[in-house]
């Protein structure tokens, strides 16, 4: 099937796919900003996302077929390592594909909620900001240059702050949430730059593959490298909402426009985690990250605290979006736990969970967006009795919810299974216990909403039978079916994440 899609691509994508991936949405965003209405902006954003997805598919096939498994693209024809390189291997193509696919679904789904939540004259600009954000995220994934990564990170972040703040029309709390996010995000990005500065000082290069090569010749006890590592990890930890650096996330997710929440939850933290994986495994050697810097012993406890503490917080939320936001922080814990054991199996399981989480959280937030649209409420009380009023929307919500718990036949179960296996292979019995406890807490917080949805009488007299519009339902069900499909047959995703883990651990084709 992928070959068939790739066959559609014009020749130029085969040659310049790595750059077009980012360039298409970036150029379209400029055009979208001048569109007279939101509908045209919406079409442009779909076109941009579809173009990027096509590039990502082509790149995937290239990575899988090329010897060495690396697509290297020199921007502007400047030689690597002096010029900026876009470097795609099995690790980041996974993320590119995920972001582009989720981005496309998000774009399709966005129109009704944007019409409802964003003022008429802002809609075209809204889509411009969305496309910039999308391009930035893809850029983070595609680039092979450490400083360029920072630039793309900030491109996506700054547009995200704007997108979050647009929720202020509905609830003014979006403004302080966005400002807080801006402060934390900027501090995180700046920490990252400081870290890159240290690495540049030591190695004299900014190309990540090149840094990796030079770091291997450097004595492991170099304190500048250690300082750089620490700054980078903290900076990216902030961006990926690693506990306890997650404080910006719940409010930002809870008050942003529904569409933005959905898109961010499925992509933004994921990209930061990608960067974290790239640096701890490929740029720094795992030996250094895990032995000299004790990365595992720093991250595993934090991840486990996140899994327990934030699940607990999720249980006590009255607002569904806040609850899901806290759950996201907990789920980031799962991913980081997988990363922090430092084995290929753990890394693969962590990324597998990351992909699944993007799908199911995307579906959950999409369903919530549908409810916001039809019933104007996000509190659990507003959800009461919706199972009867909007069965299609709520069934998808329920499927994604039980996937979040990790019930068999859903994607969440598969990745928890993989995580448990990885933990047991490593002999981390306590981590097994934490995964289990956190899953049981998920039963509580998801169960609370599902119970209200399906078994409580409607609390809201306005509730007639009203489904979300088809533009929401179709992407929602695509995500839901993907969740079920992975739950039954996950080999194809596991193949991708295994390849990604191998690529991260053995960065092939280093010059």
């Amino acid at each position, binding site marked *: 099937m992928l070959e068939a899609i790739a066959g559609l691509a014009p020749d130029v994508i085969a040659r310049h796919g790595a750059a077009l991936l980012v360039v298409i949405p970036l150029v379209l965003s400029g055009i979208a900003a001048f569109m007279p209405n939101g509908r045209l902006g919406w079409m442009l954003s779909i076109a941009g996302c579809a173009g990027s997805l096509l590039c990502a598919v082509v790149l995937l096939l290239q990575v899988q077929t090329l010897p060495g498994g690396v697509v290297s693209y020199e921007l502007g024809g400047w030689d690597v390592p*002096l010029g900026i390189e876009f470097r795609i291997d099995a690790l980041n193509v996974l993320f590119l594909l995920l972001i582009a696919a989720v981005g496309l679904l998000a774009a399709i789904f966005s129109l009704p909620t944007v019409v409802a939540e964003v003022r008429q004259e802002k809609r075209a600009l809204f889509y411009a900001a969305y496309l910039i954000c999308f391009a930035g995220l893809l850029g983070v994934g595609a680039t092979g240059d450490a*400083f360029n990564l*920072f*630039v793309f990170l*900030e491109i996506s972040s*700054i547009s995200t*702050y*704007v997108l979050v*703040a647009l929720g*202020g029309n509905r609830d*003014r*709390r979006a*403004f*302080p949430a*966005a*400002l807080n996010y*801006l*402060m934390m995000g*900027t*501090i995180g*990005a*700046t920490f990252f*730059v*400081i870290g890159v*500065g*240290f690495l*540049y*000082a*030591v*190695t*004299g*290069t*900014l190309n990540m593959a090149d840094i990796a090569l030079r770091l291997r010749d450097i004595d492991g006890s*170099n*304190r*500048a490298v250690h*300082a750089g590592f620490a700054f980078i990890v903290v900076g990216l930890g902030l961006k990926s909402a690693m506990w306890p650096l997650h404080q910006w996330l719940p409010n930002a997710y809870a008050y942003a426009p529904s569409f933005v929440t959905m898109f961010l939850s499925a992509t933004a933290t994921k990209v930061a985690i990608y960067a974290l994986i790239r640096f701890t495994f490929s740029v720094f050697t795992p030996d250094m990250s895990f032995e000299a810097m004790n990365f595992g012993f720093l991250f595993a406890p934090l991840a486990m605290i996140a899994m327990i503490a934030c699940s607990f917080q999720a249980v006590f939320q*009255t607002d569904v979006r806040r609850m899901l936001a806290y759950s996201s922080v907990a789920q980031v814990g799962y991913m980081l736990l997988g990363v922090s054991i430092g084995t290929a199996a753990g890394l693969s399981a962590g990324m597998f969970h990351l992909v699944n989480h993007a799908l199911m959280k995307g579906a959950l937030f999409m369903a919530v967006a549908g409810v916001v649209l039809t019933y104007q409420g996000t*509190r*659990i*009380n507003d959800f*009461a009795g919706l199972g009867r009023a909007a069965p299609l929307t709520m069934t998808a919500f329920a499927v994604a919810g039980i996937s979040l718990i990790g019930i068999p036949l859903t994607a969440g179960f598969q990745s928890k299974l993989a995580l448990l296996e990885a933990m047991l292979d490593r002999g981390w019995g306590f981590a097994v216990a934490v995964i289990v406890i956190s899953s049981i807490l998920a039963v509580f917080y998801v169960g609370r909403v599902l119970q209200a949805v399906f078994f*409580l*009488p409607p*609390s809201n007299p306005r509730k007639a039978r009203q489904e979300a519009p088809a533009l929401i339902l179709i992407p929602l069900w695509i995500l839901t079916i993907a969740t079920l499909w992975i739950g039954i047959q996950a080999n194809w995703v596991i193949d991708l994440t295994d390849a990604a883990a191998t690529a991260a651990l053995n960065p092939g084709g280093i010059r």
Partner: protein
Amino acid sequence: MLEFILERANYWAIIGLMMVGLYITFQSTNMIKRLVGLSIFQTSVFLFYITLGKVAGGSAPILYGADAKGHGGHDGHGETEAHGTEAAGAAVDHATDGPSSDEVTQAAEEGAHGAAEAASAYGGGLQEVYSNPLPHVLILTAIVVGVATLSVGLALVVRIREAYGTIEADEVRAMDIVTADAQDADDIELAAEAS
């Protein structure tokens, strides 16, 4: 001791600015001041990069003299020059230190080394000593990013002021808590009705 401190004067400045910036960001309740703190913090990083780019004795990175003619002399000569150059922006010449135990200085040396290598990759060796231009370019980009962030931040403060009538973070938080409490009271009422 004094020498040790003075040699690294610009690093102390960077650290000082960084701490000042972060302190303002976290301590102040006025949102404008917090953004100011953030900018100071970022500025310290700009200085850090520029420090890295300075090669002692190097001139502005514009080819001149023998280099400008487009010939890069002999390779070996360029290499030696690069090795001999002192690292970074320490104002005091500390060639006598030899292989310094101080990591940061060493790091800076490596930076210069790297820059020289980069240069040799291009022209195959240069006659004159130049400062490393790359950090300046990077910082130009970073400044743009910083300006963008600051302007978005200020725009947000304007909107907060419109929505809340204040730019004090603690007052905004107090108002939010009132809103949240009202919603919770609503919830409890609804729950009571339902049962």
